[in-house]
């Protein structure tokens, strides 16, 4: 065994928009161990259920994250609805599915841009974010918000989308598709990208499963977990297959996200074709008495919202397990054996969202 030294990585680092710290134990330039440290910006939002009544707390739940914001509000609402046995109107379920997939599109494009930037591809970064603007424009046009939508509520959604607008959205996405092909072609086929990512930060299928990896991090290692398959919102009426890769390296994690862009567009297209007419919300009275674990597939993977209520307007507990939080142990494992120079790109490859983890 060579001499070991410990190199601190973060909490401030050029590839990290948010603070996470890793103590990297190195032998020469090879990482032999990584000790993670978070908690720099823990906000304790879950505690606010004791001060905010459950219908208004959805605004807090949505602010857990500035990227998966919509899906947090959707999952929180779903959890309350399951406890209170509320049947959400079908049209609202389809609208929720459409906005969820728009969230995935904008998150994946954001990540592809950041990942390109991390590898030194400035123009690819700008192109990814240019395309993301189109997605955000539709989010803003249909909900009123680019980052925080505020459109989901317990019992349905606050806004409907006119049929003409749905057609326009579909045309826009279809028009964007050929530009996405150009973009994802770089991530999937460019020789220098493949050389940079192949074999970097490998996570085996068994490790991914038992360490709790979720989302693209799990699916890139051959673990086909995708909570959309449980059929929440309108996913039960949509045909899709999770994107799964098997090599478990940074390239596979990148490829899963790149290919999922097309799955999202396909799901949105199916929703727009199938969406029924009807109301988008129902009146909700009373308060939740019971408990439930609601799960959804966020862009980074499975999110869990646990709620316990006692029949009062203030919940007893709201607990959120975010995908990044459960992807930390896999990150520790996949860093082992990496070269120090690869650490930034490998850390980025799990798409860490510290805002979520530090809810």
């Amino acid at each position, binding site marked *: 065994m060579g001499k070991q030294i410990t190199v601190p990585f973060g909490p401030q680092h050029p590839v990290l928009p948010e603070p996470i710290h890793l103590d990297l134990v190195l032998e020469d330039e090879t990482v032999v161990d990584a*000790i993670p*440290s*978070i*908690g*720099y910006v*823990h906000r*304790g939002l*879950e*505690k606010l259920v*004791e*001060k905010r009544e459950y219908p208004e707390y959805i605004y807090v739940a949505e602010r857990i994250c500035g990227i998966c914001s919509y899906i947090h509000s959707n999952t929180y609402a779903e959890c309350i609805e*399951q406890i209170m046995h509320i049947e959400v109107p079908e049209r609202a379920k389809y609208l929720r599915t459409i906005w969820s997939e728009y969230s995935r599109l904008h998150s994946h494009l954001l990540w592809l841009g950041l990942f390109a930037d991390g590898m030194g591809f400035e123009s690819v970064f700008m192109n990814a974010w240019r395309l993301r603007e189109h997605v955000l424009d539709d989010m803003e046009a249909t909900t009123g918000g680019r980052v925080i939508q505020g459109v989901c509520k317990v019992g349905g959604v606050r806004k409907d989308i006119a049929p003409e607008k749905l057609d326009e959205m579909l045309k826009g996405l279809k028009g964007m598709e050929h530009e996405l092909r150009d973009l994802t072609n770089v991530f999937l086929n460019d020789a220098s990208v493949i050389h940079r990512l192949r074999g970097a930060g490998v996570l085996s299928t068994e490790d991914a*499963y*038992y*360490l*709790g990896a979720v989302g693209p991090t799990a699916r890139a290692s051959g673990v086909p*977990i995708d*909570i959309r*398959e*449980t*059929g*929440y919102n309108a996913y*039960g009426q949509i045909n899709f297959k999770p994107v799964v890769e098997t090599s478990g390296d940074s390239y596979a994690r990148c490829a899963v996200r790149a290919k999922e862009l097309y799955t999202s567009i396909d799901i949105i297209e199916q929703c727009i074709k199938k969406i029924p007419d009807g109301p988008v919300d129902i009146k909700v009275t009373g308060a939740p008495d019971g*408990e*439930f*674990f609601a*799960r959804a597939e966020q862009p980074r993977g*499975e999110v*869990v919202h*646990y709620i*316990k209520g006692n029949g009062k307007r*203030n919940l*007893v*507990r709201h*607990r959120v*397990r975010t995908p990044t*939080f*459960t992807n*930390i*142990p*896999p990150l520790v*494992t996949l860093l082992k054996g990496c070269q120090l120079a690869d650490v930034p790109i490998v850390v980025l490859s799990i798409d860490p969202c510290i805002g979520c983890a530090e809810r």
Partner: protein
Amino acid sequence: MAAEQTTVPIGVGELVAKTAEMKKNGCRLVQIGCTKVGDDYEINYVFDKDYALTNLRITVKQDTVVPSVSSVYFGAFVYENEIHDLYGITVTGMNIDFGGHFYRTTVKTPFAVTITKEGS
């Protein structure tokens, strides 16, 4: 459409063995979370297999010493350190023990305190 979920109350003494049994059955650890209910603390160990959830629940007091399950599921350390820092419950045998520094909080064990609407 809600996937199946079952809660099974267990004793602290059987926690590690039951967790090992879940792993042997091919379950994935989804999360560990704590809820303060009156003077008691419910700790939920949630597992998934084929999208069906099984929740092993122990109910403890704040001074109960809870054994770590990180020897069974390596990734449990993030949840166990979190429970220690937010609720003040001692978890022994964690594979990575942050010694109370997993979260940097201005108030010690903030989630062990219940806030009333009046702010007291």
